[in-house]
């Protein structure tokens, strides 16, 4: 691609590049579902941090479907997935020393989570 000219920069900045992408199958989870983050340790790119893996949370909200970071990072295409905002209680993540009132919210692609038992 040729260099973007100066007079196009503002338009590109204001338009952005949303990562939203269509997925034909319906989302697996809905608000209120209990889910567990998978314990996966890929050597490549992932947006599932270690502090979440194996922990159980509740789906707070369905965000829609987006290109999958893990595949985009390696030139393997968008391969879009459903993305959920999931709430984890602080004590679930950090143990009883954490506040009983606090929580963490993180956005998880479909293949990062499973239904909790």
């Amino acid at each position: 691609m040729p260099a973007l000219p100066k007079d196009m920069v503002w338009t590109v900045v204001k338009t952005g590049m949303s990562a939203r992408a269509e997925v034909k199958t319906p989302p697996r989870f809905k608000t209120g579902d209990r889910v567990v983050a998978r314990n996966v340790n890929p050597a490549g790119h992932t947006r599932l941090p270690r502090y979440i893996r194996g922990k159980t949370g509740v789906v707070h909200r369905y965000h829609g479907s987006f290109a999958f970071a893990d595949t985009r990072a390696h030139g393997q295409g968008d391969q879009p997935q459903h993305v959920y905002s999931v709430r984890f209680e602080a004590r679930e993540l950090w143990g009883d020393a954490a506040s009983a009132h606090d929580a963490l919210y993180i956005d998880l692609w479909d293949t990062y989570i499973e239904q909790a038992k």
Partner: protein
Amino acid sequence: MNGIHDLGGMHGFGPVVREENEPVFHAEWERRTFGVVNLAMGAMQIHVDEIRHAIERMPPAEYLESPYYEHWIYGLEALLRERGVITRDELARRVAELAKQEKK
């Protein structure tokens, strides 16, 4: 990857240090880095995920000790080399030429 960038929950980093009235860019090279990396990514259709992963592959000590925008330089250099756009030698030669010019 289980890299140094995956910082959530780690101990030992001390207080959050804030700079009063921090400027958007601290130096001309930070400005240039912000601009060049964004434009290069656009021109070469590099996804932000690719540059993030390039940065994740920085040697851990370097990642922690270098200023933020140096991560961007590292990431861009790595991607350009991996895509065969620029070789390590070409870059080294250009750096040497520019260093010489600055000494004059």
